[in-house]
């Protein structure tokens, strides 16, 4: 059982941040890692990125978008309550080396995952530019937090309510035009966004890392649910990733596999609060 030390709605009804008391996980967590959690005995196991970790305090932070049964249930828990199972840290940590200029692109809830990675890059001495985007200003996350260690935070919103009007790729394209010496781009967010970033950097030959959100069950390399095709080969996102070379990922296949359970997920969501207390 893992206690929720702190909880706040970042975007009411949509995005929640929780700080969890998980000393062993906090001590081992590195940027890029995630946890798998379960909220109740009949619940499913879902992966969430460790958005931040504080080894001294023994806490980890998760930020999640309420999209379905488990995230909705999780959002209902209050400060002081406990989460049934939290397992981690899982996955390979981000490969952090000093390379110079790094751009970290985050879209929607992906900004939270990107936050920990960007922080890691800043800690090893890279000059980090954050490019974050959302549909509108009220849906933006972590702008202030990123500002604490990023060289620059560029914002794009679809409606122009904050930063430049447009997509993160628009802001990224402009930035890369001015800074052709960017050594690495990291993109975390919805599949279409990661794909667009990878397509943008491909002709420029800039190394691009994406964090894949495939469907997972165990998160320990046992089930193969998370398989993705990278460079023509099957890789398991939970143990080989979740980060991969964005130029080698088969995004079509990833997008298709993410739809595998949509009808059942709807049914399960419709059942929330009816089927079990």
């Amino acid at each position, binding site marked *: 059982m893992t206690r929720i030390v702190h909880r706040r709605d970042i975007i009411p009804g949509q995005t929640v941040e929780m700080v969890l008391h998980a000393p*062993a*996980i906090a001590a*081992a967590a590195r940027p890029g890692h995630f946890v798998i959690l*379960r909220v109740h005995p*009949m*619940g*499913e*196991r879902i992966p969430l990125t460790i958005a931040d970790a504080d080894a001294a305090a023994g806490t980890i932070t998760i930020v999640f978008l309420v999209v379905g*049964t*488990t995230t909705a249930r999780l959002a209902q828990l209050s400060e002081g309550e406990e989460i*049934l*199972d*939290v*397992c*981690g*840290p*899982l996955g390979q940590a981000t490969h952090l080396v000093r390379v110079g200029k790094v751009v970290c692109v985050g879209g929607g809830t992906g900004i939270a995952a990107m936050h920990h990675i960007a922080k890691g890059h800043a800690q090893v001495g890279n000059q980090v530019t954050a490019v974050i985007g959302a549909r509108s200003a009220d849906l933006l996350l972590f702008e202030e937090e990123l500002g604490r260690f990023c060289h620059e935070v560029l914002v794009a919103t679809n409606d122009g309510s904050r930063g430049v009007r447009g997509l993160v790729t628009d802001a990224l394209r402009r930035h890369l035009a001015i800074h052709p010496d960017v050594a690495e781009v990291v993109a975390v967010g919805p599949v279409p966004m990661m794909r667009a970033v990878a397509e943008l950097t491909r002709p420029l030959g800039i190394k691009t890392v994406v964090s894949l959100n495939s469907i997972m*069950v*165990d998160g*320990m*390399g*046992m*089930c*193969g*649910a998370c*398989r993705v*095709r990278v460079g023509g080969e*099957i890789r398991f996102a939970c*143990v080989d990733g979740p980060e991969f070379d964005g130029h080698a990922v088969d995004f079509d*296949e990833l997008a*298709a*596999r993410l*739809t*595998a*359970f949509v009808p*059942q*997920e709807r*049914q*399960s969501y419709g*059942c929330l609060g009816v*089927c*079990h207390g």
Partner: protein
Amino acid sequence: MARGKIRPRVPMPMQDPLVRRGNFHEVALGYTREQAMAEASRCLQCTKPTCQSGCPVEVDCKGFIAHLAQGDVEGAFAVIRHTNSLPAVCGRVCPQEKQCERACKLAPTGEPIAIGRLERFVADAYYTSDACASAIAAASHCRMPQRDVRVACVGSGPSSLTAAGLLAALGAQVTVFEGLHEIGGVLVYGIPEFRLPKRIVATEVEHLRRLGVEFRTNWVVGQTIGLRALLERGYQAVFVGTGAGLPQFPGIPGESLLGVYSANEYLTRVNLMRAYEFPRADTPLPQGRRVTVIGGGNVAMDAARTALRLGALEVTIVYRRTQAEMPCRQEELEHAVEEGVRVRELVAPVAFEGDGKGWLAGLRVEHMVLGEPDDSGRRRPIPTGTTEVLPTDLCIIGIGTGPNPVLLRATPELARNRWGYIVTDPETGETSIPMVFAGGDIVTGAATVVLAMGAGRRAAQEIARRLGLV
């Protein structure tokens, strides 16, 4: 022992195939007391029994059957438990026909003693009888006083549970670290309820708890804590029993289509995550009307029979050799066929075909013929070039597994063989890291419960010796 006088084996009561294919209750119902005593009394009590050496953990079959024939369940249990820490599990899932029962002197008559069924009876009766309940309750008092010896077991499959049980009984403080949220390894995430009810595993685990074994779930060694860190934090020895859980895919076109699953994913969703109760359980389940299962082992049988129970109209097992070469327990194949699973022999999958919208529509297979025996002694399948498409909307792949990767990647200094399994000293189970032992599927590759237990036992004996517990 004139052959004519040998009474036939007492048959095992079973659920009717037509009924059981619609439920997850146990298929084999277990002997009654009378049936068990009748079967036990068939035992010849040979002066030089061979059954015991047929068992990888050397259960004293003759000894426990003698107690049972007198109606002494407690005595029989004590004899079994002396070498076997998971008798209720072994009595259900061991391939007895290849082990103790094959070595039985009556085997040539075709009616060997039903040793597995008797073992199951003894364990079940012991765990449920009132008299024994008090013995179990008392176990917490009569266990060896704990000494200042700490041992960690990684994983909670049969190898680790066996090692943990033995070491705890000798007074060590044992902690089992399991990555998943339930204890039991394949026994809970792989083998379905209708063959091995979860409560059986839970009972055996509870028994270990009473011996003083501490269980920590959601701890992934190599991620939450390193193997070296365990040694540094005061565990004097570590047993690694992480299993062979990495699913293999055949590497043929179309295997990423929706509707293609590894048997591990399918069975984990159903068993561990209880997807058969969806939507009461949150984990969704792949549904299929026409299901094909690739493989011929226990895993394939379990997946096929599970799909049938979940409402598939048609379930077909696709195997590249013939039924005679299938590595599964014979009983499971028979049960599957009785329940309505079809078997297509001598066909090998060559491609998954889609419906144009990303979903599986068919499995293309190539017809095979049998050639000469290969290294495994089984006749080798030879492709003929003729193919055919089996219409299917759900395909479950059970063609084998590789070593569970997490701990190995985090501990590159742990010596491995060319298939990636941990190398151990065959006598002691010690790995290339001193005081780190390993056993079970992570050493041998996918094998059996009782072999994993044997490995756990050997390693535990060595650990006990090194740490001065014996």
